[in-house]
């Protein structure tokens, strides 16, 4: 499957004779150069990921507790629902200029965009996880004299873990999107800066290679999330 795709890519790119489309082999050469030649990818990745890591971490530590609480508290859920509806409905990209106006061309601006992209999906999924807890298990816990605290730690949170992780995985993908989007749109730094620069210098192989690095990172992070999920919730696979 992969081999077929790569062959298709190579052949199609050669036949296209388009200066904007790099062949698979040229892309690999460029990737090698980015890693071990000029080595620019490392600094770019590090720079970009600062926003990703910070933004995703902030998203997770706010959205998970809020989602847990809103899943069980009707009042909080009602209070939050207009904002969650807005965050779910609007496209985030138009907010990028607003963030720049507020924070300038800073790390804070990039972090805030990553949060805007990621936070809602983590929240919504965590809330849904709490909502879907088997009420028969909650009743069982009551019957055995469990306190509200025990019901939370022994029934509700374990039930919500799979949905919570689904939210974290989606949120991670969105955070990556946000990270690259903001760099392309306004704050030319990190991976985004590389992409723009190589595009302007008509070096499509380098553009393609940089995109491959972003994809590789995304796959790696998702695999890591899945690994952690299996460790935390082994009953779910």
């Amino acid at each position, binding site marked *: 499957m992969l081999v077929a795709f790569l062959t298709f890519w190579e052949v199609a790119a050669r036949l296209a004779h388009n200066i904007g489309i790099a062949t698979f082999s040229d892309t690999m050469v460029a990737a090698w150069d980015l890693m071990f030649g000029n080595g620019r990818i490392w600094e770019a990745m590090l720079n970009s990921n600062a926003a990703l890591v910070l933004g995703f971490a902030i998203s997770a530590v706010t959205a998970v507790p809020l989602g847990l609480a809103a899943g069980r508290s009707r009042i909080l859920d009602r209070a939050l629902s207009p904002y969650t509806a807005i965050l779910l409905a609007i496209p985030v990209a138009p907010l990028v200029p607003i963030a720049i106006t507020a924070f300038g061309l800073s790390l804070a601006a990039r972090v805030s965009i990553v949060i805007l992209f990621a936070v809602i999906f983590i929240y919504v999924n965590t809330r849904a996880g709490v909502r879907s807890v088997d009420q028969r*298990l909650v009743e*069982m816990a009551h*019957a*055995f004299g469990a*306190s509200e605290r025990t019901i939370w730690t*022994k029934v509700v949170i374990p039930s919500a873990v799979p949905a919570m992780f689904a939210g974290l995985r989606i949120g991670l993908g969105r955070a990556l999107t946000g990270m690259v989007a903001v760099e392309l749109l306004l704050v030319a730094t990190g991976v985004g800066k590389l992409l723009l620069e190589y595009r302007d210098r008509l070096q499509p192989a380098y553009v393609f290679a940089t995109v491959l690095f972003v994809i590789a990172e995304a796959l790696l992070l998702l695999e890591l999330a899945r690994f952690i999920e299996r460790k935390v919730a*082994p009953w779910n696979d």
Partner: protein
Amino acid sequence: MTDMTAVSTETQPPAPWPDDASLAAASHGGPMIELRGVSKEFLGDRSSTTTTHALDNISLTVNEHEFITVIGPSGCGKTTLLRIVAGLIPYDSGQVLVKGKPVTGPGPDRAVVFQSFALLPWATVLENVAFGLETRGIPRAEREEQARVLIKTVGLAGFESRLPRHLSGGMQQRVGLARALAVNPDILLMDEPFGAIDEQTRRIMQEELLRIWGYRRKTVLFVTHSMEEAVLLADRVILMSPRPGRVHEIIDVPLPRPRGRETERTREFTDIKELLWDKLRVMQTV
């Protein structure tokens, strides 16, 4: 899938119970559960004003060490009755007393076995059986020791570290039974515990329950929709009528114990079962 029948029970001697001393001394044979004119209504949907009269003026006394089964057509409120005694839902009027004290919620003197098993899917057999002890704040080592004893009692030795989804339905309910017994309650409340289990396994579970009950006579309130089950297990069968749920009749089952499969072949068993069917037949609207 590992089947119930693969679990050998003959080889397991009656294991001692967590606190063995109390029972013989504490036996007074007095009323354990008393219901006095208990009624319960369920409100319909928010939009409608209809209410369901689930229970109407139920009066009933269950004595210590008695095995009571409750049977009746669907909608007669038998499960509601059990949940009220468990303290899981409030009642509208009347009085529910357990050991002479009004029921205001769940208590350590009662343990419930659920039709749906209600096992925590992420917890092992051992952790599930120990759950009721955990909620009571008993330290890990102690509660696991007690849980292991009960796991042996229900014939699940060797399955301690399995997850529920790796067990058959019958085995899962053994876990449910062990969890209830582990807290050493005075009263076992069983809500159609074998209703979701296939016929062959159910018969084995009935014999198992009788075996376990035979050497530690908890007071049991057992809801069922099986006439054979109701008669085989009970000292008295509470026959309920539907809409509103009322105690229609209480039928004594003076069959000798210990009971088993051979009991079902006796004339007396068949007579009581037929009597029960005659009475149920009248209520049954198909």
